[in-house]
């Protein structure tokens, strides 16, 4: 039991390290990915903050949506991670990894961590851009630590979900179709760009079970309002959801090779 846990953790690290090395060999992807959140903040955010149509609890609209846009960019990176296992299946890399004495859970966690690292690089870009737009954020050592934790957990959850979808649909084309279909509702049925209170009743229910809302809520408390009262609950929900999805994903995704 102990050796299994040790093996799982060291191998998750090895696999994540390799993913990060790949990213360092070719960082262009990070830059192109940064474009979308910059457009959301710079255009959508700027435009809507002029209208003042959305109640934002005394904060500027740009302050209000910064955690939402950050969450969006992390989730959009993670939700397409399943595509990599389909691509790795097509090339044979996945089969080869599955034939090594590596716990299945480590293969899932390795991906989750690397999605988290990509998410953190997005966070750095968004924070820098927020500085350019003079968006006031509450940044301290502890709030940044919380940001890292929430991004890693949130990226982990959506990576796991994505790997499960990949193991069911099995082809790139179908995966892309489903990816497109679920990302927009996930984002709009959350508290990312407007508060849950202005939504119709049924949508509020959806927003409250959407893990994306818990990420936004946690991040908003950390870097905007400084209200930490709901933080333990947000983190607990994300941690439990990520753990459950890790286990389901580790069980399901090896089936993608069949």
């Amino acid at each position, binding site marked *: 039991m102990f050796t299994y846990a040790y093996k799982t953790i060291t*191998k998750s690290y*090895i*696999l994540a390290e*390799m993913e990060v*090395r*790949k990213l360092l*060999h*070719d960082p262009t992807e990070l830059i192109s990915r940064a474009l979308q959140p910059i457009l959301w903040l710079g255009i959508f955010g700027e435009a809507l903050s002029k209208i003042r149509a959305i109640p934002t609890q005394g904060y500027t609209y740009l302050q209000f949506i910064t955690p939402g846009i950050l969450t969006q960019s992390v989730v959009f990176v993670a939700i397409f991670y399943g595509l990599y296992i389909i691509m790795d299946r*097509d*090339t*044979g*890399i996945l*089969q*080869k*990894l*599955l*034939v*090594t*004495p*590596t716990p299945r859970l480590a293969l899932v966690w390795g991906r989750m961590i690397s999605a988290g690292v990509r998410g953190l690089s997005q966070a750095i870009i968004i924070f820098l851009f927020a500085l350019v737009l003079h968006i006031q954020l509450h940044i301290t050592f502890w709030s940044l630590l919380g940001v890292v934790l929430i991004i890693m957990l949130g990226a982990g959850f959506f990576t796991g979900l994505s790997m499960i979808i990949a193991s069911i649909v099995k*082809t790139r084309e179908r995966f892309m179709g489903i990816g497109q279909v679920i990302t927009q509702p996930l984002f709009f049925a959350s508290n990312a760009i407007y508060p849950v209170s202005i939504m119709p009743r049924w949508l509020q229910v959806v927003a409250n079970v959407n893990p994306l809302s818990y990420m936004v809520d946690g991040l908003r408390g950390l870097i905007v309002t400084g209200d930490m009262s709901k933080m333990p609950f947000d983190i607990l929900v994300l941690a439990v959801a990520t753990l459950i999805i890790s286990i389901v994903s580790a069980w399901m995704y*090896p089936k993608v*090779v*069949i």
Partner: protein
Amino acid sequence: MPNIIDVTNLTKRFGDFTAVDSISFSVERGEIFAFLGPNGAGKSTTIKMLITLLKPTGGHASVDGIDVGTHPGDVRNVIGYVPQSISVDGTLTAYENLMLMARLYEVPRSERKQRVQEVLDFLNLQEHAKSLVRTFSGGMIRKMEIGQAMLHRPRVLFLDEPTTGLDPVARQNVWQHLLELRKSFGVSIFFSTHYMEEAESAADRVAIMNQGKLAVIGTAGELKVKTGKPGASLEDAFIYFTGNQLETAGNFREIRRARRTEGRLG
């Protein structure tokens, strides 16, 4: 010591379809064994069961005396696998690709660097250690993959169509390295191929699968004699034992993958 591979009544069903229908055979230690058959004959499914990617529906298979159905984790420690399609990571360097496998295969930390260096020397890739693998030629990629599969000194190497898409020079080069590996480490080699000359020149014994069953097994010479035609080639034997019918199976995905591999390696 048990045979390196022992298969008895091995069966795999997908719903109503029986992909592998109660086959039995053995591969001896140190043997080079060629596995032939038309697309969809059940070769890939059999290999997937032997390398623990698929659980058998019935029967038994053991590798180095370890049951693949009940102890897949232990089997993984004693086998090396080279898939048909490209399985090195083009966005990592040669050194990183090898080091990744050395770590995943739990080569002791003190020996890792040396093993990776040995493999690079053996494959004559020392100068390319720090190059990204996507810049490599087809032959170099195949050699890298064989190197990756040998880092942990497996007892048996499984190769799925190892020379598909390679030019004749690269093909010869790959086999030269495989034969050297057998000489140095006594590793057994189990490979599938569509090239009859390759099966004949490299393998000690040949098995031909057809429609989920083992049609025949023996040396290339024995198979030719069994056709009953004087002067028959192994290709004649292949056609004789697979029933001469037009290829009916092999799904779109497999064929697309094979073609893509050829495109990229060639």
